[in-house]
């Protein structure tokens, strides 16, 4: 193939000579069709301008409808008319030049000086200066004629010495010397400013403004044609009047009218010009309107690309389908098709499909002739089918489709699923795959695309299949993870205290598709750990500290870790696929940190992780329905002991705060390095508040943690905190303890009234309670002051989310757009679409993050373990 590099694109102004050269026909008649419906000769619908009727031939190029691109015509205007988009440019020229001689109204040496300045200062700033100087000139230094003020009544009417000028405009601009063009930034070889005042108008081809025949047989013309008819009509009237020697006043009126029509033909939204209306009162859509804006040619037709074999609908959750599946409504599945190639191996099968079912939609013969399959001809077509045919059939279970949610900020925003045709009208997805799409079910819509070729299908399956994407390609750790219910449920299931009867266990085994029941391991009963173990591969061995361990360490640290003998059952051990010790929580299932998920997704075939999720979903849904997870107000009540402790520490804080405040007020407070005294004081106050909070937080956590580890745990908020699925000790603290210091921009709130935050405080009070400390909890309820402090902090949070989503969204978009067509080549280099080199080795180390362990090429700990085993 011949390849040429585009060196540049030049935009310029079309010359009248060019318009005439391009013209296939000079349009002279304002009428479009005659009485019999034939296009008028040299009218706007003359067949020289292109064909829109199938079967007819173009009189210019002789081609038929689809082949003929259409041809431009031209229209000679009897009087020159200002191009409305160039009024301002003409004004600039007029301000700086002499009407009589057309030279710039400055002495020659000055002109030369300004010409030289262009190189350093740029045209715009020089032109501004020239114009400002030219405006003030009263007498032309070249021809000594007097120079008067020019006024532009936007967009097209010019006044010279307070009098309307018509013919003079074009005459004036024509006088302009070519050597002066440079001052205005024009290149004499390409543009002549007098072209801004048009003597000839280009008439667009019919193909651009086709007439439509309505069902009633009435022909309806395009808006552009309407406007052109107006122009031609006035042009003719003006011509007749001039030839008849009509008074100047009438001619000028007609001229203005012609100017109006040309202006609105170009842009029907020109400021200061009433838009031209259709008979029905609708404003006409003329040239500028066609190009501009969201619905314009650029954004709507050129940038807005559309595809076939796609569908869009609302998404709804279905936890009982696999993560790699997507539920497609029957209605949509019947509309979308996939081509199936006939080979000698599937020939009989396809024949049967065509004959006996209504799955086949089209049969395409080897010579690409397409035939629709319907009730009447299916037997006949089935007979005809042979190797080389293609059958386009409806989508069916097991087909591969791409599924996508906008904004596609991610590789994972478009993944491949297998089809499951289902009832209903919505797409159904397993709630676990919401995460990569960032989808929820409050009305989100998503798109499917059906790959049409074997290459497309294979590529989708190998590179984009959901179950192969559990590990993030960005940081090499799990992204497709169990949702909050799943983690809480798995935690409850694997608690040591959870036991099931034989009947219950049978139900869970059934959910997992198992038919043989193991031996009970808790006397007559079954432990949740045993049930959970059924979902693990039989050769799995793992050992690590759970999330529960982390939380226990915060409140009541152990001296020595007893590992699997942990008294809290917080150390996890899986041997040969049996969960022996420990609970399953965020440390096993969570995002990034989930070690169990990491192991299953990395070391086993991808079906293992998919089935694991499928089983967990089913078992957990059942478990939580039967046992329940709830929250009640009594959970947030604290013991008297803690109430007392709470008032004690707050009192201490007030005391310490007062001491610090006094010290600050007396001026004896020493400052921290790099900080002013005031900053140091604020820092100190923040520090005091934070310390106070800490004292209480641990006490509350400890009190609330105990019931979880009892024989009969309550399944409530604490389960979520300990399992790590939702909430933290901070949330608990805010509800049951106290809120603590209100924060605005990493410090105590300080903006408000003069010398105080709110008018409830005394002026110049900088103490603890006046500085935004909230000693109440959500359970107690806040007092009026505290409510305001809390709102100050709340406002900042609201503003931050608003600003950061907007800013980071735009930054990300720009980054993604600039990087989108970079490709890693087989030699490891990163190159652009035109194979310019960007990196010599991808990422400088040539490592694909998806194959890393949390970003590191090698998991050193694991390698060390392996080596120990080998020794």
């Amino acid at each position, binding site marked *: 193939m011949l390849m040429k590099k585009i060196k540049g694109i030049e935009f310029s102004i079309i010359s009248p000579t060019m318009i005439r050269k391009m013209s296939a026909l000079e349009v002279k008649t304002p009428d479009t069709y005659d009485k019999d419906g034939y296009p008028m000769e040299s009218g706007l619908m003359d067949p020289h301008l292109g064909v829109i009727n199938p079967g007819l031939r173009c009189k210019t190029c002789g081609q038929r409808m689809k082949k003929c691109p259409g041809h431009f015509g031209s229209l000679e205007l009897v009087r020159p008319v200002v191009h409305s988009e160039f009024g301002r440019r003409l004004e600039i020229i007029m301000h700086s030049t002499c009407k009589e001689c057309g030279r710039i109204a400055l002495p020659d040496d000055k002109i030369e000086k300004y010409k030289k300045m262009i190189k350093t200062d740029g045209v715009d700033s020089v032109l501004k200066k020239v114009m400002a100087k030219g405006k003030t000139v009263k007498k032309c230094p070249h021809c000594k004629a007097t120079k008067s003020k020019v006024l532009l009544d936007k967009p097209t009417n010019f006044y010279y010495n307070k009098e309307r000028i018509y013919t003079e405009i074009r005459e004036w601009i024509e006088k302009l010397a070519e050597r002066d063009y440079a001052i205005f930034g024009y290149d004499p070889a390409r543009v002549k400013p007098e072209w801004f005042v048009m003597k000839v108008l280009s008439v667009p081809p019919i193909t651009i403004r086709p007439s439509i025949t309505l069902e009633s047989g009435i022909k309806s013309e395009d808006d552009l044609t309407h406007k052109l008819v107006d122009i031609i009509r006035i042009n003719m009237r003006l011509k007749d009047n001039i030839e008849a020697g009509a008074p100047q006043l009438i001619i000028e009126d007609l001229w203005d009218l012609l100017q109006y029509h040309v202006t609105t033909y170009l842009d029907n939204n020109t400021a200061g010009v009433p838009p031209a209306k259709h008979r029905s009162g609708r404003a006409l859509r003329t040239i500028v309107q066609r190009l501009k804006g969201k619905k314009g040619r650029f954004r709507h037709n050129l940038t807005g690309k559309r595809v076939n074999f796609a569908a869009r609908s609302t998404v709804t959750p279905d936890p009982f389908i696999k993560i790699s599946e997507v539920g497609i409504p029957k209605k949509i599945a019947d509309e979308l098709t996939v081509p199936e190639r006939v080979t000698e191996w599937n020939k009989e099968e396809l024949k049967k499909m065509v004959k006996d079912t209504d799955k086949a939609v089209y049969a395409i013969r080897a010579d690409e002739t397409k035939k629709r399959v319907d009730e009447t001809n299916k037997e006949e077509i089935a007979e005809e089918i042979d190797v080389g045919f293609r059958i386009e059939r409806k989508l069916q279970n097991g087909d591969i489709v791409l599924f996508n949610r906008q904004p596609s900020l991610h590789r994972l925003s478009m993944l491949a699923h297998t089809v499951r045709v289902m009832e209903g009208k919505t797409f159904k997805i397993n709630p676990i795959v919401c995460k990569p799409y960032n989808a929820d079910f409050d009305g989100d819509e998503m798109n499917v695309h059906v790959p049409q070729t074997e290459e497309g299908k294979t590529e989708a399956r190998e590179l984009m299949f959901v179950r192969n994407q559990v590990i993030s390609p960005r940081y090499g750790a799990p992204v497709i993870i169990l949702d909050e219910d799943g983690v809480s449920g798995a935690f409850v299931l694997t608690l040591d205290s959870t036991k099931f009867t034989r009947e219950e266990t049978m139900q869970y085994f059934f959910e997992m598709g198992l038919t043989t029941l193991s031996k009970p391991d808790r006397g007559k009963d079954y432990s949740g750990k045993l049930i959970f173990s059924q979902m693990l591969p039989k050769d799995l061995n793992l050992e690590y500290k759970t999330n529960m361990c982390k939380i226990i360490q915060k409140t009541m640290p152990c001296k020595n870790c007893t590992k699997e003998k942990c008294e809290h059952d917080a150390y996890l051990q899986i041997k040969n696929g049996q969960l022996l010790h420990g609970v399953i929580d965020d440390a096993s299932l969570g995002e990034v940190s989930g070690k169990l998920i990491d192991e299953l997704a990395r070391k086993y075939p991808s079906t293992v992780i998919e089935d694991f999720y499928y089983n967990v979903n089913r078992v957990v849904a059942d478990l939580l329905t039967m046992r329940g997870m709830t929250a009640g107000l009594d959970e947030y009540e604290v013991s008297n002991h803690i109430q007392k402790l709470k008032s004690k520490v707050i009192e201490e804080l007030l005391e310490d705060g007062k001491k610090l405040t006094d010290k600050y007020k007396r001026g004896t407070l020493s400052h921290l390095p790099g900080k002013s005294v005031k900053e140091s004081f604020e820092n100190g106050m923040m520090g005091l508040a934070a310390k106070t909070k800490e004292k209480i937080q641990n006490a509350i956590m400890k009190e609330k943690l105990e019931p979880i580890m009892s024989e009969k745990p309550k399944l409530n908020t604490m389960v979520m905190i300990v399992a790590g699925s939702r909430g933290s000790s901070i949330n608990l603290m805010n509800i049951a303890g106290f809120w603590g210091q209100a924060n605005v921009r990493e410090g105590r709130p300080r903006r408000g009234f003069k010398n105080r935050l709110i008018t409830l405080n005394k002026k110049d009070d900088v103490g603890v309670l006046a500085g935004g400390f909230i000693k109440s909890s959500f359970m107690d309820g806040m007092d009026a002051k505290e409510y305001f402090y809390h709102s100050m902090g709340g406002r900042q949070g609201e503003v931050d989310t608003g600003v950061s989503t907007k800013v980071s969204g735009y930054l990300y978009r720009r980054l993604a757009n600039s990087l989108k067509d970079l490709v890693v080549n087989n030699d490891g280099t990163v190159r652009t679409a035109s194979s*310019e*080199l960007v990196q*010599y080795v991808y*990422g*400088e*180390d040539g490592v694909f993050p998806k194959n890393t362990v949390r970003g590191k090429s090698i998991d050193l700990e694991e390698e060390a373990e392996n080596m120990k085993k080998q020794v």
Partner: protein
Amino acid sequence: MIRSFNEHFLVPKHIMLSKEQAAELLKKYNLTLDQLPKIPVSDSAIADLHPARDDIVKIIRTSPTAGKTVYYRRVM
């Protein structure tokens, strides 16, 4: 005293490639000169090398992922 900022530890090492080395590089990556990343002649980091147009400069940088990495840029 730092006489040239090339001595500063944050400025990566810039080395001029010989004609043969340059040709070899282009062959290795199957590149034409205009596909190479560019560096202005006036760049202070290569001022000591007295570069001419179309010379290729080898840059040895520290990298957060690979420790050390080599990059080539064409003088323009």
